[in-house]
């Protein structure tokens, strides 16, 4: 709750103060505010500070922030802070983009703290509508405009389905509150040996589709490679991490409410997860563009994360947390490094930008390798620890899914190592730029390795 206040005030301030000014400074300023928010949220999560007074205007059945919600909020604000800081260099006039990013972040936080389907819907829209605009914020570029239109059209489509799903659920259960919504099917039907009413099952499918669209699970993922490629790099970094994180937290919370009737929905989630893992990984093999490769990689990761939705319990938050942390940090770092290495234009970001990196900027090449290892899930990085926890917890109930996950991970090496191949094996012809803000990359790499090596310490902190 505190984070929503802070971000809202900051967004308004930045919007008005930044009129007709260059964006760069405001980017750094907002980043610092976000870091502060992260610290406050961590303090809230660990119980070092108490913000309950601030939450009184919203009843607990609408929105609630407990330790785990605070922790995920901290994750979101930290990600946004990193995105804003790494991409802060921007000659554009006007700070409307930063304002929009902050509003979208507020939407993401609402999705994390929701206790009521309406708040979930509001959060989803607050997150999406600024993104439609942001995707097209590079007005001069045709592909950016195309991305915005595509995202908007398909987003509208999915929103409609989502809303219909909420209506069905309300019809089936008579409530919109998360606490109560799962009780009726779980107890009144499942325990008494009755089948779950069709209305609830349909509602669940439709609501899931709305969220599956946001996390770009196959076959609802078609928008994401096109939109990611067309959007400005910064917005892609935001979409592929913040949107996905928030949607996963919301999705797993929702499905957790329905865990009493898991047999009604787990089989099609498994099917979608398998399809997503295979599709994302295989389609990524043939891509030459860094952004499209990362887009498919993020689809594949969504597939792995769907495992979490199946196994979520009250006490398993840490798996999701560690996974989202490692995934978000490494994919932001990869994209940002490609972005900074490329000269002038944002078009055609392909693997050539990394050529000869190991000769010219060996330290950055090493960091690149760490980020690639983490995304691919190779040991001593956070990516491995996250995948290990996720897969090993899933194995007992869904061995087939874990097998597909391992197969997908094996295939993924094929495209992740394109980064390393260009950086280390190919000699550079193009003169790539010097990477700026190097310490941020060092910080990210250190976090990833630390989580990878001392996973247990992180778990203790997260509170398992």
């Amino acid at each position, binding site marked *: 709750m505190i984070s929503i206040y802070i971000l809202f005030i900051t967004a308004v301030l930045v919007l008005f103060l930044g009129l007709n000014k260059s964006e760069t400074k405001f980017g750094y300023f907002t980043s610092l505010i976000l870091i502060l928010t992260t610290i406050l949220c961590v303090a809230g999560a660990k119980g070092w500070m108490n913000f309950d007074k601030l939450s009184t205007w919203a009843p607990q059945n609408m929105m609630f922030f407990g330790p785990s919600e605070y922790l995920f909020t901290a994750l979101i604000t930290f990600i946004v802070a990193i995105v804003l800081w790494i991409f802060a260099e921007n000659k554009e006039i006007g700070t409307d983009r930063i304002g929009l990013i902050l509003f979208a972040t507020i939407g993401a936080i609402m999705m994390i703290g929701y206790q009521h389907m309406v708040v979930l819907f509001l959060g989803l829209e607050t997150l999406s509508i600024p993104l439609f605009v942001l995707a097209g914020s590079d007005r001069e570029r045709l592909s950016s405009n195309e991305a915005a239109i595509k995202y908007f059209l398909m987003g509208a489509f999915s929103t409609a389905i989502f809303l219909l799903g909420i209506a069905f659920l309300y019809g089936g259960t008579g409530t919109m509150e998360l606490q109560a919504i799962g009780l009726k099917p779980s107890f009144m039907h499942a325990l008494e040996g009755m089948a779950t009413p069709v209305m609830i099952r349909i509602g669940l499918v439709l609501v899931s589709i709305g969220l599956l669209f946001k996390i770009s699970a196959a076959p609802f993922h078609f928008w994401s490679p096109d939109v990611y490629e067309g959007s400005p790099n910064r917005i892609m970094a935001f979409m592929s991490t913040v949107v996905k994180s928030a949607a996963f937290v919301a999705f797993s919370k929702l499905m957790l409410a329905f865990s009493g009737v898991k047999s009604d929905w787990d089989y099609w989630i498994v099917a979608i997860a398998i399809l997503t893992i295979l599709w994302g990984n*295989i389609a990524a093999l043939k891509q030459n563009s860094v952004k499209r490769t990362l887009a498919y990689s993020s689809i594949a990761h969504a597939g792995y994360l769907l495992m979490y939705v199946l196994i979520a319990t009250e006490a398993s938050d840490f798996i999701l947390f560690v996974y989202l942390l490692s995934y978000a940090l490494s994919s932001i770092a990869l994209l940002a490094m490609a972005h900074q290495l490329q000269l002038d234009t944002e078009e055609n970001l392909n693997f050539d930008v990394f050529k000869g990196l190991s000769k010219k900027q060996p330290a950055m090449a090493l960091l690149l390798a760490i980020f690639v290892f983490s995304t691919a899930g190779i040991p001593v990085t956070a990516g491995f620890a996250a995948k290990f926890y996720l897969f090993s917890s899933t194995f007992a109930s869904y061995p087939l899914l874990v097998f597909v996950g391992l197969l997908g991970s094996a295939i993924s090496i094929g495209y992740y190592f394109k980064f390393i191949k260009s950086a280390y094996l190919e000699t550079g012809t193009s003169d790539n730029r010097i990477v700026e803000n190097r310490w941020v990359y060092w910080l990210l790499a250190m976090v990833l390795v630390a989580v990878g090596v001392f996973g247990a310490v992180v778990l203790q902190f997260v509170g398992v």
Partner: protein
Amino acid sequence: MSIIILLPLLGFLVSGIVGKYLPKQVVGLISTAAVVLSFAFALHMFLEKSILGEAVSQKWFTFLQVGGLQIDVAFTFDRLSGWMTLIITGIGSLIHLYSMGYMKEDEGYYKFFAYLNLFVFNMLLLVLGSNFIMLFFGWEGVGLCSYLLIGFWYKNLNYGKAARKAFVMNRIGDLGLLLGLFLIFKEFKSFDYTIVFDQIAAGNTPAHVLTAIALLLFVGAMGKSAQIPLYTWLPDAMAGPTPVSALIHAATMVTAGVYLVVRSQALYFQTALASDVIMWVGLATSLMAALIGLKQNDIKKVLAYSTVSQLGLMFVALGCGAYTAAMFHLTTHAFFKALLFLGSGSVIHGMHHEQDIRKMGGLKSKMPITYFTFLIGTLAITGFPFLSGFFSKDEILLHAFSHSPLVWGLSLISASITGFYMFRMFFVTFHGKYRNTHYPLEKVHESPITMTLPLLILAVLSVLGGLLNLPHYFGHNVAGAFSSYLAPMYKFAEHSPEVSASTEWLLLAAAVSVFIIAFVAMRMKYISKNSVPEEDDSMSGLGKVLANKFYVDEIYDAGVVAPIEIAGTVTDGLVDDIAIKGITDSIGKSPNWISSLLSRVQNGNIEYYLIYMVIAVSILLAINLF
């Protein structure tokens, strides 16, 4: 306690990261200070706690928790690990100090000190860790440091090969150790020393399992502590700078195996078979290495084989169940062998990197301090009465005798050969005529104070080290201090040797007489007759076999390395190139092919995307409706 462990790590980080940009003296001072301070803290802790019998345990954090497996980064400073810590940091300090002089001219100065500090850190992990996993971390860490330091002058191809040999040999041992650890976890569901040893002591474990664990752990000890058949790396490891040989390959790392066995006393006490294996392996190693040592002409090689031989004696003691005697000999050996190595380093330094004793001679006048301290070291190791080696070796012999007179006889032979090769080396190096034609005698010089000071300190320790554990005939007030110090560390009380007083005096007399024989014989040969060890090509018969180290390296090459290489070539050509490559390549190509198909689906037209979505939604609804 954290500070004892962290200081060397800090030293490593500082000298490793910024050492390049600092002047040499500063780097040397920082790293030396790190170890000296660590020693000071360890000493303080030792006096405060260990003497009184208190053990200090500390858990930093849980490193890993998966299923029933919990691995803590935790440390225990008890009487045993505390003692080892004192040896490591104490000798480590002296050797750091010495290195400041010895490595002065070297360009890799900062790197050297970084590695040394890292070694001390890992060694402390090994001994202070309170579970087998921490021991394993340290075990691998010191192996790595040993590899880096043996190959420190990596531009010389042979040195690089020696480093690789040490690493591979150790890996073989490590495999045994690892298997032992797996078995421990399977049996006891924990790696924690307390839990594992309590369960072993409770006696509910099947005997064959205990024996298997004990033997596997001993395979690890064989690698690290250079026992037959894995000892050949240690003499080659002399390729590293001499302080490294002194610290790692004489005083500390190679004794890790002894520490492991003493730590697992509860285990070895109950497995007679494993103990016998240890004893006989130790005995064979001791004899064989001593014999080889007789015909070596490289000053460091002689010391290396001597180290192997002494380690063998320690294992004899362990096999006989004389754990304290082994620890005692470990301690005195650390003193006098470090002294001898540093002394040989001083000689090498003074002779400008000449290591062949045939090209030395008469150095006594030119290097008085080195001569004097080397003499003490030689006397201590050969068992001159009332020096440290005399007491520790006699204690082992006494235990061996009470175990079986045959073992005693063989150990005594091994101990007497020590006298032969040590005095041979000593007389040839320091007495007689100067024989080097390339490097004039005038240029030979005594080493600087940073190098001679550690020599003097170690000489004092070598003389007085025996006081730690005086035999009982010195009276019960002063005798056996070390035994009663270590006694609480054992789950099972040690046997004390049961021999009558007269037998004991006889044994003592035997030990002293072999010392005298060795001394006199070598003095006659190399001083009175002034003979010099023969050149390599004029050797024949047994001498040639000894000089060529029983051809063990050649046997290993022909018996192990060559078959593996042949098998490698066959599998590479037949299995890998044809069968596996064919299969994997086609598996690898199929996703690429599917990938092109999928790209065609993703054609950029939003109408198609929406149709796909509608189809998917319809299917999902259909499943749930019907």
